């Protein structure tokens, strides 16, 4: 089956496992995802942006369950099934949004430990599987 990323350049399956691809300021340590060309921290002495990979472990800060079929530009496979998404605080200091990978929506709680995974988000008409990053409770 053909697969492709939902948006190119946001994540990669590295030898160490899945990672989000962003950047970090070497001067003030501020994390950016997606990548930023410059540091936006007004207290930063000097903008020194370097590529950075984020993940895989973190904690769910909060979550929400999408209970109705959302309008475009959200895409999903028919028939619509409610799904969870959340705000995750990664151990390396990035606060990031992501789908939660679970079949048991009722089991989800804020502060749960989670890990980064790369999984299908939806399928295109020709069957191509579109991949995004998600967080799986551990």
């Amino acid at each position, binding site marked *: 089956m053909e697969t492709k990323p939902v*948006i190119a350049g946001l994540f990669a399956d590295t030898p160490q496992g899945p990672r989000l691809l962003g950047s970090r300021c070497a001067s003030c340590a501020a994390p950016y995802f997606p990548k930023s060309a410059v540091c936006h921290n007004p207290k930063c002495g000097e903008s020194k942006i370097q590529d950075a990979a984020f993940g895989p472990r973190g904690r769910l800060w909060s*979550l*929400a*369950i*999408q*209970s109705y079929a*959302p309008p475009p*530009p959200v895409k999903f496979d028919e028939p619509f099934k409610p799904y969870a998404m959340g705000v995750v605080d990664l151990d390396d200091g990035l*606060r990031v949004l992501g*789908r939660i990978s679970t079949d048991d929506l009722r089991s989800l709680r804020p502060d749960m430990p989670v890990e980064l995974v790369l999984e299908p988000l939806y399928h295109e008409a020709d069957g191509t599987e579109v991949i995004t990053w998600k967080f799986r409770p551990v």
Partner: protein
Amino acid sequence: MRDVAVIGLGMHPWGKFADKSVNDLCRVAVEAALKDAGVSWREIEAVSAASSRFSGGKGWGLNGNDVVEEMGSTGIPVYNLSAGCAAGGNAFNIGYTLVASGLYDLVLVVGGEKMPKGFIQTSGLEETTDPEFLRQRCVGMPGPAFWASLCWRRMKDYGTTEEQLAKVAVKAHQVGKHNENARFRQEFTLEQVLKSNVVSYPLRLYEICPVSDGAAAVILCSAEQAKKRTSKPVWVAASAVATASFDDGITRGLGGLGPSGPTLHSEAKLAVEKALKGAGVGQKDVDLVELQDNTVYYELAFPEEWGFCKPGEAEHLMETGETMPTGKLPINPSGGFLCFGEATTAQGLFQVCEMGWQLRGEAGARQVPNARVGLAQTLGLGGNATAVVLKR
């Protein structure tokens, strides 16, 4: 800077008006404000208009120019202000500045809009530099889910229950039913709110404001003009605008700084703090608050973030009736966005109109007894916020 008075208040009721243009809505609001002020259109020296991407403005956000053409092309300067859902508050700030600076004596501030159907959406372009597009395509998180995630965290931190969330909506409609300009004027029982469709758990349909059509206008003037024209001026004690700070805890795009403190919606907090300081009043001096309740969450979270009550105390104040017009911290005596719905450019000005009527003692069944000082706040896409303090 000179003292600035609000002498004219006008509104077109909120609702859905398929057979009216945005110009029709604005004309009703502007004519009402002019009449209330006893000012003729030809006397208006400048217009500060909230600019919309949804309707009017010749497709370019030139909403103020549409209003001037509609009312009569007198050649006056027009300022079109864009700040997402904070645009009305932003236009008020510029209108205030134009009078306070001494540049003009009589200024019209106006916002009017017809909103597209459904919850507010992205631009429609598949633009990968747009954080809103990325959030929706990669994560599947529309606006209500974003609010729901904040709400769920509040439930974790303070034990807020689904019933308490629903009670905020019940309270909004108990007040809003008295407002002839509100779109939804029926009361809801707790059961009705809890039985309304779950949009994004834990938030239900009646706990989220819909989009509406509406318009509001105010006339601002110098103290000298106010003396001539009215016996009951309402004064602008402060008008403030702010944007989000770098250490804000909310993820506005896909990712950002980890938690560096409890600061959420720093733009709103900064604008409110600036306005209170500018007005020289403390939270205890404020008799009513009109805040942007896109969802019930904000009516609980904002008063705490702004120091009006202790963290986790908002539910208790709401449940004991203290946030009703007759309580010690009246919040949204207008009925708020839950009863009006969002007409993004007009809402900062409906808040000013409501405060004006409250401070003049003209708010009827939703009147806050002996209201002397009011605070209103808006919040818009892009990290925009405004706050205004009016006093009698």
